[in-house]
Structures are given as structure tokens and as C-alpha cells.
């Protein structure tokens, strides 16, 4: 149980920081061609670097600690979030933006009521994908260089050649993520998109 909590903490911190950073970077890249060109190479590198290299390098640079694990985890998920949000920002409807401009709406209002709702499908979609990615990669990170967490326990039971122990932790991980995804992200997604199927959500 403690191991599961340690693992979840790492994932949630990395997920939180990664989402905020990825959304902001992605939106900025979508809006500015110059920043897009500037970061393009980094984005490609981030997308293609083998994850295992990332974790090993992070441990070598920062030592065998949580900062290294979480940092590498963030770098793992950020590029995919950035790609999604960049596409989302490019797909913004210019007609709605023009409407908001025509009615002289303040900038904060435009972001909140016009831009953000259009980015929401991309944000929710990428949140589900990157949470499950982080959930899978954290085990690898722990297996390589942490002394607690689910990944560590799996490597421990592996060394004992204990199939039951390995599967117990593996299946628990699957179930926990499944519950989080369905209960929280799925509900969130339905709430956010109620306007698309208004007949179902009458109040």
C-alpha cells in the first residue's frame, strides 16, 4: 500500500507539472510561428529519445533520487502534450475569434470563453493519454533507481522469481489507473462536452 502511494505521488506530481507546462508550450507554439521553429528540434528530440535512456541519464546527472525520477517522467510526457495542444491551437475557429473581436471583448474573456473551450477536447484527450503513459513509465523509473514504489517491488519479486508478487503489483496498477481514468477523467470529459449532446444533459 505504501509502495503504491509512493508511485502514485510521483505520477501525480509529474502529470500535474507536465500538463501545465505542455499546455502552455503547445499553445504558444501553435500561436507563434517563430517560437514553433525555435522549439521544433527540441520537440522532435523529446518525442524520439528512448525513455530508458532518459531515465538512466536523469539518474546519472541528478543522482538516484525522486527529483531525477519525476523530472524524467515529466520530459517523457510533455512532448506528446505539446504536439496535441499545438494542433488544437492551430485549429481554433477564426470566425469565432473575429466575432469576439467585433464585440470588443477583453482578452481575458476571449481566452476563457472562446479559446479554452476549443482547446478542451485536446486537453482532455491528451490528459488521458499522458496519465496512462506516465503510469506505465514510472514503474520503469522505479525499477531502475528507486528503493520503494511499485516498480521497485516488481524488481524485488522478480529477483525472488516470485510470479505471484509481480502479478499482484502489476494488476493492482492496472486497476487503480482504470478506476482513476473512468471515475475522474471520463466524468470530466462528459461534463466538459455536455453542450455537444445537449439532449442528454437537460437540467
Amino acid at each position, binding site marked *: 500500500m505504501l509502495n503504491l502511494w509512493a508511485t502514485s505521488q510521483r505520477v501525480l506530481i509529474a502529470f500535474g507539472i507536465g500538463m501545465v507546462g505542455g499546455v502552455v508550450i503547445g499553445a504558444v507554439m501553435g500561436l507563434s510561428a517563430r517560437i514553433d521553429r525555435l522549439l521544433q528540434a527540441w520537440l522532435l528530440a523529446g518525442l524520439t529519445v528512448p525513455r530508458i535512456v532518459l531515465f538512466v541519464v536523469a539518474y546519472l546527472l541528478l543522482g538516484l533520487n525522486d527529483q531525477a525520477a519525476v523530472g524524467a517522467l515529466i520530459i517523457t510526457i510533455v512532448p506528446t502534450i505539446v504536439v496535441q495542444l499545438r494542433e488544437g491551437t492551430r485549429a481554433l475557429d477564426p*470566425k*469565432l475569434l*473575429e*466575432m469576439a*473581436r*467585433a*464585440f*470588443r*471583448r477583453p482578452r481575458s*474573456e476571449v481566452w476563457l*470563453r*472562446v479559446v479554452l*473551450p476549443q482547446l478542451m477536447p485536446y486537453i482532455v484527450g491528451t490528459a488521458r493519454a499522458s496519465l496512462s503513459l506516465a503510469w506505465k513509465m514510472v514503474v520503469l523509473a522505479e525499477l531502475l533507481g528507486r528503493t520503494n514504489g511499485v516498480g521497485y517491488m516488481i524488481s524485488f519479486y522478480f529477483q525472488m522469481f516470485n510470479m505471484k508478487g509481480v502479478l499482484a503489483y502489476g494488476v493492482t496498477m492496472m486497476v487503480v489507473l482504470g478506476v482513476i481514468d473512468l471515475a475522474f477523467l471520463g466524468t470530466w470529459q462528459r461534463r466538459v462536452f455536455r*453542450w*455537444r449532446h*445537449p*439532449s442528454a444533459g437537460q*437540467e
Partner: protein
Amino acid sequence: MTGIEARGVVRRFPLEGGGERLAVGGVHLRVEPGEFVVLLGPSGCGKTTLLKILSGLDQPDEGSVTLQASGGGAPVISHMFQEPRLLPWLRVRDNLAFVLDGAGRGDTRLLDGWLERVGMAGLGREYPARLSTGMQQRVAVARAMVVEPDVLFMDEPFSALDELTAMTMRQELLGLWRELGCTVVMVTHNPLEAVQLADRVIVMTASPGRVRAEMRLVDSFPRPRDPEDLRLWRASREAVRHLGGAPVLVQDRRPANDSG
């Protein structure tokens, strides 16, 4: 009351692969306070571009546009587009509230009152996706009016609707316009619509967009006008002749030239 004055407005757009296209080629235009002016022209004659420049959504490359508010202070500007352009994630009532500042926002009675006047009573809590295009455009009318504009800019607001709906909505629009007394600049490619609504029709030619003719209708067609009036139909034919190329006066002279 707000008048508009445009002097020598020129707008160019760069073309793919170099060069540029002259979309609006030097337009002078004066709109009197409270006047209903219609810009009539074929597709691609730069009338939408001109409208955007007048409303401040676009900047002219040359020339200038001034909005002269008689009371001082910045005039309130409002818009209608060819499409409703409602925010689909906001309920109908919130779409009206979106264009208001501060106090009016929570004023449900004000918002519902406007919905009622465009025939949308009781639909404030619906999402736009549940409404037909015609109903959505009615909401767009309410949205344009709820700010109590000094100037209303309209870009072919009824051209995407079926003719029956459009006919009713034109009459409703005229009613609201008389009530609010705002200045209106409307773009259309429908000559009959132009002469039914306008105090003055400005006929524009294509590439580059220029003013070819002006038809002053306010004296010969007092309001309220009968949409069945055959003289209106004749006036629309005259507008079409203006569009057809040579100005009417030259056409009238042609037989004389032939005989001479």
C-alpha cells in the same frame, strides 16, 4: 447617433507567389447618423472587406475611417455575420451575456426580454446545437441588439436562410432598427433585399471594389414599405443594371448614339 466617414479607403491583399490584389480601390463614403445604408455588389467585390474596414476589424492600406459620435465618447458597435457565430458551449442566454459588460450580464430579465422580442421566448437555457440555423440567427439578432448599438454592421445576415424565414426576419429587423434608431451598414448581394431595407443603396463593382452608383430611396419609398410594392421590384432591377457594367445614364444615351 453616430455617423461614419470613409475617405479614399484602399485595401490590398498580397497574392500567393508575389504581386497583390486590389480588393478595395479608393472608396469615399459618408453614412449619416441613423441612416440604413446597404452595400450591394457581386461576390468578391470587396464589400465585406470594406465593411470590416468601416467597423474597425480590418485596417485600410490608404485612407481613413472616422466614426463620429454626436454625444461624445466611443460609439457602441455591434455585428451580425452571415453565420450565427454563437459559442456552442454556452447556453443561448449566456451567448447574449457574453457580449455585455458587468452589470447587464446577470440581468436575466433583460436577456430574456430580448430573446422574447426575436421570437425565442423560453429558449434561453438551450444550447445552440439544439436550434435550427434560422433560430440561431435570431439569437444572433438578439445578441447584436442587446448591447444597444450606435452602429450595427451586418454582413449578409440573411443569405444563409431560406427565403421565407429571411422575409420575416427582414421585417423584424426594420422594427428593431426603428426602435433603437441606430446607424446600420449592411452588405448583401440580393438587390431586392437591398431596396427593401435601405435608405440608400451603394452599388459596388468587383476587382477592384469601387462605388459605381448610389441609389437614394428614402424619399421615394417612405416607411413602412410594402414588400409587395412593385416599384421596389423596379428599383431592384435598376440596381441590377448598375451592377451589369455600364452606368444607367450611359445606357439611356445609347439609342441616341446609335441613331447619330
